[in-house]
């Protein structure tokens, strides 16, 4: 999601599930939607059946998606960037990009300053010691006086983004793609032809992906490559287009929207850092500057940041947040910069028994609360996870099953944990209700907030999450009230004014997230006009103020629970535009907009590229169609289409990421070959790695086989194996390892027999599934075998349904932007068990 935010302005699926039916071409890559999103996959089928859309599946395995695709292209895990940049090269080379779109809706004409360089696999600004980039050399060239960006509308300037991109991708010839990815040249060219058939006004294509792209040490840049391709083809903002990220869980989008990551507060407001001690400093460090005086003027919507931030502080601290105390900003925790608090780093601290803070080194964490998360199951390098938890004094696990995390202390011996008698960690397991046992919303990949109703009571002593949190909050507050403590203010002043503080009603919580007026809100232009009376729910984030007269728990979700009621509960299938937008079904952030960046669905004059699939159009007075991602009465030409970016246009070149403004093919941290493009800088130089004795990596000579991991339709993460004799365990009964026929022959492995797979970090054993569906690839001149296996099993679970943890083998190397581990490409050894 970091990638999409850095390219388009917001980190989420650009379009929506139902919108896929409007497409002409689907490139399904870095994901296996038929397997992992079978319900949403109906829209793929719809597009194929009703529009004759072409579905192209690119995957290391011949998947369920490939089974129903028009065409399948094999690719080696960890080579996606080469593949995508190969298509970008093809589009530019064959002039199969949407030129009019590129000129007005992307930063192709922007001129980059002359300090930017790319040599031998490294961009300018690299600090070898820190393994990180300084981004100042990546800046656009700007007029010294006006600070306006320099642009060349003809795209001829050799330092304009378009020319830089052309030069950058020139190395990704079909031959090079074949050499790196293993995709036969003819197959690759056929994919290129189909995908670039949408580089015009008449046709639209979509790219769908999921964790097959994110879980790499280059994950963000893979998605960047896809986003660049879609911008070039003019497929962003248009119905049937987009870069569509499919989330791995029913509510992962909602979690991300609501401070699921350490670097964000709700609504992607930024977590304050230690250098931002006042709100003013925080704004200064976080809000992008609007640069006026350029042809591509921008709304730079983030100028409204203070309204959202103050409203959030009012929601958090209530009356205690006043103008005089800087809206209680001081009470928000500040993270030590530049250190990283992503959860793997916390586990690294645990394991090492040491935490690096701004003030120096401190002992590692002594306690840990894990809420609906199973780090031992889902974290890479399971042995390290088990060892890290063994160092804690206490751990609280809030779960609906006794997960691997809850019983880490009795992990089987191959996890190399300490003797249970030697482990001092006190584990508290709080039984929690499952999703079906509580009300609330799910926010799906399409950013739709949909209310769900409790189906049944939780069993036994299990409690809904809100009750567990509520009780915890009240108890901690009482403790602080009684004992004082070092810094009681943020705890004691935390607003907790629910009608049932012990178990807040989630409808009330949703109302709080939507926000309300704390005083009568008058129209700025006409003070006699009352917009909202004090106490009323606001209609949306446009009504939020930075003067303390509004509160809002998550500005992005504002509009979900207005005076009209709980919009997440709407279930109308009315679709007047016929494009599957369903504006009165649930609520879609932002502002119930169904397709983001929809201004780009129209040309410079505001006419839709394709009138049969109009996102929005300018009728002379206002934009009509979908909820415009634009000021509704702003004429075309006034602002760029990408209102969240200071440039106002989509970024082919993005100076905002940690590992380069353009994507570049780097090998996975463990790979079967050295990078053919620049062997000396084989893997991502900026990728994040740990350095403990457990964080080991294998050599390709010892571990010659490429391995990947994935999920199965029949199972849900690490849950379903807890159901004794359940239907899902019946229809997909256990762990297996998919092995190509040729490799099986070579090793004398027969289908159904037991095999052992080892990486530098550990070994697991399982049933061999010998299959034609695992292609044999020729990589850089040599035959490379690849195998794979599903996650879903672990040492916890119902009798007969336990199995090995896939993550015993996976490495903890991470993407340097999102700190997502490289679960999808690593090296192993295979033998008969």
């Amino acid at each position: 999601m970091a990638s999409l935010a850095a390219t388009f302005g917001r980190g989420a699926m650009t379009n929506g599930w139902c919108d896929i039916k409007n497409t002409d071409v689907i490139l399904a890559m870095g994901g296996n939607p038929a397997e992992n999103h079978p319900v949403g996959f109906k829209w793929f089928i719809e597009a194929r059946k009703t529009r004759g859309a072409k579905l192209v599946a690119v995957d290391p395995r011949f998947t369920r998606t490939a089974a129903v695709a028009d065409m399948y292209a094999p690719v080696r895990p960890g080579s996606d960037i080469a593949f995508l940049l190969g298509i970008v090269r093809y589009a530019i080379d064959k002039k199969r990009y949407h030129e009019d779109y590129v000129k007005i809706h992307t930063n192709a004409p922007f001129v980059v300053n002359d300090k930017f360089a790319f040599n031998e696999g490294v961009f300018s600004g690299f600090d070898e010691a820190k393994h990180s980039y300084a981004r100042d050399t990546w800046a656009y060239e700007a007029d010294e006086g006006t600070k306006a960006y320099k642009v060349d509308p003809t795209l001829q300037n050799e330092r304009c983004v378009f020319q830089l991109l052309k030069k950058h991708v020139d190395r990704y010839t079909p031959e090079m793609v074949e050499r790196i990815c293993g995709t036969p040249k003819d197959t690759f060219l056929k994919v290129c032809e189909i995908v670039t058939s949408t580089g015009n006004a008449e046709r639209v294509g979509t790219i769908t992906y999921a964790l097959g792209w994110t879980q790499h040490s280059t994950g963000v840049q893979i998605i960047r490559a896809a986003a660049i391709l879609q911008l070039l083809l003019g497929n962003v903002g248009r119905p049937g287009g987009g870069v569509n990220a499919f989330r791995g869980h029913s509510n992962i989008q909602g979690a991300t929207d609501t401070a699921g990551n350490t670097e964000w507060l709700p609504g992607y407001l930024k977590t304050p850092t230690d250098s931002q001690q006042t709100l003013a400093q925080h704004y200064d460090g976080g809000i992008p500057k609007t640069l006026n005086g350029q042809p591509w003027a921008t709304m730079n919507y983030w100028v409204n940041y203070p309204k959202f931030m103050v409203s959030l502080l009012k929601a958090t601290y209530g009356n205690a947040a006043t103008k005089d105390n800087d809206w209680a900003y001081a009470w928000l925790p500040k993270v030590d910069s530049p250190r990283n608090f992503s959860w793997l780093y916390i586990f690294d601290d645990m394991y090492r028994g040491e935490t690096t803070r701004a003030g120096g080194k401190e002992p590692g964490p002594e306690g840990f609360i894990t809420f609906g998360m199973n780090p031992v199951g889902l974290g890479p390098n399971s042995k390290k996870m088990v060892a890290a938890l063994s160092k804690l004094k206490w751990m609280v696990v809030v779960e609906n099953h006794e997960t691997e995390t809850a019983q880490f202390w009795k992990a089987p011996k191959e996890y190399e944990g300490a003797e249970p008698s030697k482990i001092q960690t006190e584990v508290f397991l709080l039984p929690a209700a499952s999703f079906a046992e509580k009300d609330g919303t799910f926010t799906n990949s399409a950013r739709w907030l949909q209310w769900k109703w409790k189906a049944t009571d939780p069993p036994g002593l299990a409690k809904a999450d809100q009750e567990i949190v509520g009780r915890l909050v009240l108890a901690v507050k009482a403790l602080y009230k009684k004992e004082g403590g070092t810094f009681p203010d943020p705890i004691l002043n935390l607003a907790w004014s629910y009608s049932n503080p012990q178990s807040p009603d989630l409808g009330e919580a949703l109302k709080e997230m939507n926000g309300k007026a704390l005083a009568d809100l008058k129209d700025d232009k006409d003070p006699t006009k009352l917009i909202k009376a004090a106490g009323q729910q606001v209609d949306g984030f446009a009504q939020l103020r930075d003067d303390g007269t509004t509160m809002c728990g998550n500005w992005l979700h504002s509009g979900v629970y207005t005076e009209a009621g709980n919009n997440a509960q709407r279930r109308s299938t009315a679709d007047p535009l016929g494009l599957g937008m369903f504006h009165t079904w649930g609520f879609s952030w932002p502002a119930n907009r169904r397709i983001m960046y929809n201004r780009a669905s129209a040309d410079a004059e505001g006419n839709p590229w394709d009138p049969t699939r109009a996102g929005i159009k300018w009728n002379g007075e206002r934009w009509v169609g979908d909820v415009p991602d634009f000021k509704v009465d702003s004429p075309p030409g006034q602002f760029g289409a990408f209102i969240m970016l200071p440039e106002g246009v989509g970024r082919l070149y993005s100076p905002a990421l940690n590992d380069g403004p353009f994507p570049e093919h780097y090998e996975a941290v463990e790979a079967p070959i050295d990078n053919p493009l620049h062997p000396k800088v084989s893997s991502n130089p900026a990728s994040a790695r740990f350095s403990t004795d457990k964080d080991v990596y294998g050599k390709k000579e010892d571990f010659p086989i490429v391995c990947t991991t994935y999920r199965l339709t029949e199972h849900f993460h690490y849950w379903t194996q807890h159901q004794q004799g359940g239907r899902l365990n019946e229809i997909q009964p256990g762990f297996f390892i998919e092995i190509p026929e040729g490799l099986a022959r070579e090793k004398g492995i027969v289908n159904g027999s037991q095999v052992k797979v080892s990486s530098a970090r550990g070994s697991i054993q399982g049933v061999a599934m010998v299959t034609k569906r695992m292609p044999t690839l020729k990589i850089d001149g040599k035959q490379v075998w690849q195998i794979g296996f599903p996650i879903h099993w672990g040492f916890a679970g119902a009798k007969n349904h336990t199995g090995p943890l896939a993550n015993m083998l996976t490495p903890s190397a991470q993407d340097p932007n999102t700190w997502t581990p490289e679960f999808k490409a690593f090296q192993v050894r295979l033998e008969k068990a």
Partner: protein
Amino acid sequence: MSQQLEIKRSSASLRGERTILREMPVVAKYIDTTTCIGCKACEVACQEWNDLPTIKTTQIGSYQTLPSLDANFWNLIKFHEEEVAGNVQWLMRKDQCMHCADPGCLAACPAPGAIVQYENGIVDVNPDACIGCGLCSTGCPFDVPRFSARTGKMSKCTLCVDRVTVGLEPACIKACPTGCLQFGPKSEMVALGNARVKQLKANGMTDAALYDPEGVRGTSVVTVLAHGSHPEWYELPKNPTVPMGVGIAKSVFKPLGIAAILGAAGATFLHFLRYGAKEPAEGGVAAKPVKSAGAKEDTVVGDQIVRHGTLSKIIHWTAAVTFLGALFTGLAIWTPIFGWMAALFGGLAVCRWLHPFLGSAFVAAMLAMVVYWVGDMKLTKGDSGWFGRKAIDYFFNRAEDPDVGKYNGGQKLFFFAAALLALLLLASGIPLWFPGEFTRPLREASWLVHDAAFILFAVAIVGHIYLGTAALPGTFRSMTRGTVTKSWARHHHPRWYSEVTGKSPGDDTTK
């Protein structure tokens, strides 16, 4: 589309089958394998709606839940990998009962009303009438019905007849996320299928076809296949028909068999009317039987000869009783004409249960008989005449063969034929007893062999009983009291008479 369930056809029914009051559209499931992603939602929905118990499965190296359908698993996606012109294909097809217009299961089913075809095309098992014999699975060209040890009945997809009746779609259709499953009037589903095939062909899948096999007059499951000329890749038979064996058993063997058995009974009756009893002038039946208990066979006791000792009699009567038991239980299953016989045993299901045990006991008795009597059954030169002249003389010319020992050639032939038929009945009966353990063609062959063997046996037994009772007075006593009169022996078995008494048949003066 709420429907009344009018029965169109019913298994093993003698008279008019239709209960129809009004025409119903035939319904059908539509399966598009080209948009099926093998997600198995239909499998779970089927299990849940039909309240089937969870099966314990194990990972055997496949995405497929089970190798094939199960009594407790009626809806199974078959996964098949195939390399076509260098490209891998992963074909997935939802397998279940096809609900044939011409259902082989119904044709094969011996239990009246156990399988019905409703007017809307649904073929359903009625568990109240089902006897769990498994013949339906032998009649099914798609290998669908399974015997459920849990219920003792056959079980298979009902096309959710309970849902369809009240206007709902089958559970599998309801659960399908991609829309590759549809449900409605068959004409609409076929139209949908044809349109899809056309689209696929236009899209380059030139081998696409709609599978709705003519051989069974179409099915209420129409399947779009990308590789229409290779249904076997989807584990579908190429040209399914109701197996020929079912037709032979039902349309040839059954009428011929009934005719043969009734004909044999009639023939013996007519023979008796025309020729009467064959009795020596002195009479075959002793006026005053002697007690022969414990006496050895082939010895003279008073004026009579011991023909069968106690063990012989036990063996014979065991064989006789078990044979008749197996025959009657079998006949009741075989045709509804003899269905009334089931009542003697407590119903058709009891017959099905009892029959193989009785049959096995019979074969065991036969085995004992062979061991015990084979010494007396040594064939002699003269026996060959019993294939021709001697038999005709015996039955129609009242002539007696002077060269007959304890058993005449006809009896020996009967003995060996009975032994052979018993063996055949056992061998063919086992696959019918445990249908789940044998392949369908073997079961089909066994069915025909079993039918043929029992018809021959039944005909022979009619003759045997006739000869042992009315035709030859005194003979029956040889199996009850164990003794025969000397005149009976002299008359019918002259050589044996000489061997036992040491006298030549002509010397007899006892009279």
